[in-house]
């Protein structure tokens, strides 16, 4: 039955896989002399400018197309997963309003999401954060933002609004994943679940290391249900568990002698590489389940992330091998 329901999406992904950058394209990109050359190559390959919003907009559009072919239960998960771009846009809008950035300039930084029901230009025209929330009424984002509004007004920082959005988005994503059938849920956990767990772990450490937050704040600003990194993990981190120990539980070995900040960056890259390998392995077999779809979407994300690292690295004058060390892609 699963083969039947996923046959259309499988065909679609198979057709699209060829559009991912292949080994030779990556070699050309790494060997490119400047960031401009990288941009030109990307434009030639993908037909869109090598700008983060444009590339992410392309992923959003691809996901939107795939969603139509998915069975109802997993369709909801993938459709909600795709809303991460709306969350990114909302954060960009909030930043633009908070720092009073020109609406046109801020608009350029937004991810073009064709199927979004949010009127981004209208939001950017708002005079205040509360006006943005007012204009979001009717969308699912109004309530979490409204909940955090008073804290924002008292602290004068965007953090409460941003974290409220993130928590709202991920909590619902986890709930949707948990409501899948056991087989589908297992597939979803392999990529998305693992990725959410790692992110929760990194959040907890970032809040502790960079934010100097207290345990109760760390617990309130992280996910309590995040697969391998649930409330127990967060509590241990909040109470001071060393990064090497918690990372070890996830199978990541932190080289000794690294500071916690350096180790955090290292874990991020290691996690990315692990998921990249898993995605590649998943795509070498038939894709008749949700895991195949998520693996493909994850590869799209990873490709964009690597392209941006490459472009920024070139702009900073880093050498090819130096840039490659920061990338998720290993071959």
């Amino acid at each position, binding site marked *: 039955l699963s083969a039947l329901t996923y046959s259309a999406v499988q065909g679609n992904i198979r057709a699209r896989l060829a559009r991912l950058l292949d080994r030779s394209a990556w070699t050309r990109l790494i060997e490119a002399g400047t960031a401009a050359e990288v941009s030109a190559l990307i434009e030639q390959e993908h037909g869109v400018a090598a700008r983060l919003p444009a590339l992410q907009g392309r992923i959003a559009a691809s996901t939107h197309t795939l969603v139509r072919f998915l069975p109802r239960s997993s369709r909801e998960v993938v459709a909600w997963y795709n809303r991460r771009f709306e969350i990114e846009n909302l954060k960009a809008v909030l930043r633009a309003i908070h720092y009073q950035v020109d609406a046109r300039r801020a608009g350029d930084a937004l991810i073009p999401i064709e199927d979004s029901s949010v*009127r981004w*230009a209208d939001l950017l*025209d708002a005079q205040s954060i509360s006006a943005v929330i007012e204009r979001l009424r009717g969308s699912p984002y109004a309530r979490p933002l409204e*909940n955090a509004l008073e804290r924002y007004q008292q602290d004068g920082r965007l953090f*409460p609004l941003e974290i409220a959005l993130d928590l709202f988005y991920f909590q619902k994503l986890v709930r949707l994943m948990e409501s899948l059938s056991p087989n589908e849920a297992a597939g979803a956990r392999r990529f998305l679940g693992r990725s959410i767990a790692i992110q929760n772990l990194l959040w907890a450490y970032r809040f502790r290391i960079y934010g100097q937050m*207290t345990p109760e704040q760390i617990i*309130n600003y992280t996910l*309590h249900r995040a697969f391998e990194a649930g409330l127990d993990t967060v509590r241990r981190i909040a109470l001071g568990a060393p990064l090497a120990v918690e990372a070890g539980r996830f199978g990541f070995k932190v080289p000794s002698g690294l500071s916690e900040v350096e180790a955090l960056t290292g874990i991020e890259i290691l996690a990315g590489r692990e998921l990249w390998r898993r995605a590649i392995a998943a795509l070498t077999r038939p894709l008749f389940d949700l895991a195949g779809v998520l693996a493909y979407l994850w590869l799209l994300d990873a490709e964009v992330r690597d392209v941006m690292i490459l472009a920024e690295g070139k702009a900073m004058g880093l050498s090819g091998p130096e840039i490659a060390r920061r990338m998720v892609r290993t071959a």
Partner: protein
Amino acid sequence: MSFLAPEPMLESNFFVLEPDLEAVTAALAGMELLHLEDVAPEGWATSGEWTDLAHRYSALTERLAGMIQELQARAPQRKPSPESTPDSPLRPSPDWRDIEARTAMIETRVHAWRKRLEQVDVEAEKLKLGEAQVQLLVPLDVRLEDLRRLEYQTVTVGIMPAENVGRVAEALFQIPFILIPLETRKGRTLVLAACSTDHAAILDRALKSAFFESSSVPPEAFGKPEEALAALRSKAREIEQRRREIEDERAKLAYELSEDLARLWRRADACGKIAEAIRRFPKHGEVFLISGWVPASDIEKVRKTVQAAAGHPVAIEVLKADPSRQSVPSLVRAPRWLAPFEELVTTFWLASYNELDPTLIVTISFLIMYGMMFGDIGHGLMLLLVGLWLRRRRLDFGVLVAAAGASGMLFGLLYGSAFGQPVISARWLRPLEGMWTILLTAVAGGVVLLNIGFAMNLINAWRARDWPRFFLEKNGIAGIALYWALLGGGVGVAFGILPKSVLLLIPVLCTVLWFREPLAAAFWQRHAPPLGEALVTGFFELFEAVTGYASNSLSFIRLGAFAVAHEGLSGLVVSYSKGPWGWLVLLAGTFLVVGFEGVIVGIQALRLEYYEFFGRFFQGRGQPFIPLSLHTGGRHASMAVRT
């Protein structure tokens, strides 16, 4: 009789210089005679600026509509009327700033009023929370002043997102605490939290990071809890009074602003429509291309208006429509009286550009069929009254219902029946008595209608220059001849009117229909599948056509059957309406017959129209003529213009 066929259309391309663009587009939109087409000639591209402006206008219109709604002022007129057209020339790009500035000015006043209302609401809400908090303390029988001076305990009350209550409890895992959720409204929970003073900082951080909003016991609450409650309730009444006063200001504000708001809304809406249209026009250098369809009879009027609106010459290219390669919109200029019946056709589909519009014939045949099945003076009168009542409520559908009722009354006269009783002598027959006559008449009527369908198919095929369809198809010349050879020939030979040799036509015509595709390929170079495949499909199509002729004609027998059933059912109601509760049975039965059977009969008549009649000639798939307009939906966004 222009309403029998869509208006001839001309493909019109206007090459307009940028400075004239807004004036020309506004003039075209004002005329409502141009159906826009998206074209993209090589080297031409649309302009991003106009997309941006269109979005801005859309947002502006929504803001204005929001204020109108909020003030419950006169709602924006969606339906166009002469006074709803903005009076001065529309220029979306320079007008934007002015409309935006005036909107902002009004918004300032509306916002100020709303803010006061919100403040009162917040105060009321806080008071309510305070009340709930004090209510909790009633059993303690202590003075609130004493509670405020607690030395070893920290107690706080406030609201927080309902989903965060559990999270806060988890976050406080290091300290002993009390957390009591009191009530939840609109996803927010009123919470009482307490811990020892030593841990107050932890509790405070945990609550704050869970978006807790503290609502301390109102300062006016003092004394014992019951005394405090009375004071708070009195304060709540005061606030309620203030709220009423602010609400009253809404009407005053609406009175002052409604005219300006409506005018601004109309202007922003119209400018938005123009910007939205221009957004679609491709541009090359300084020249914009406006492309679309104009009714041939209006082209001169359009040409003159465009030239008058532009400051510079406008190159206008006018081309004849070629429906074989273009999708040409259908515009039928139907008389006003026919408008309520259009839906009989459009529910099925809209006539395509090359087709005759069957609305008139469908209206007449539908009403005859309906009346025939529902013939009763009393029941028809009830339906007529219902229809007139619906019409009074501005529902076009009412006219159809009333006409169906009138037709029922007419046939009731022919059947001599009112409310199932033979109150007058039948001008024609009583269905139950002349069952065979009415059944045969129904089939004969069906044959007439099918032949009208055949004739319309021939006209449509002729108009489309589709010769295989005209000559060789089951509804073309060959098919009609076969139908009559089967029906007329059969009946004629059976009654000895025609010689048996007439029947020899049947196999000849069958062969023509069977070889339809190879013949079309031979005579008109139409694409045909391989011969074997064409013959197999041709055979099955022939079989379907022959059985279809019979079943389609016999299908109309239901007209007679329903007429008989209607009389029978009505009679049954009358026969059971004896005794003390007889009037109730009569009333309920009559409503059942009129309501239930009235709907079924309508469905049956529609079924005969759509399956038996339309199947002969109607292809539909028409594209409605939706002219560029300053009004939402346009004056004639449908396929028909009332004349």
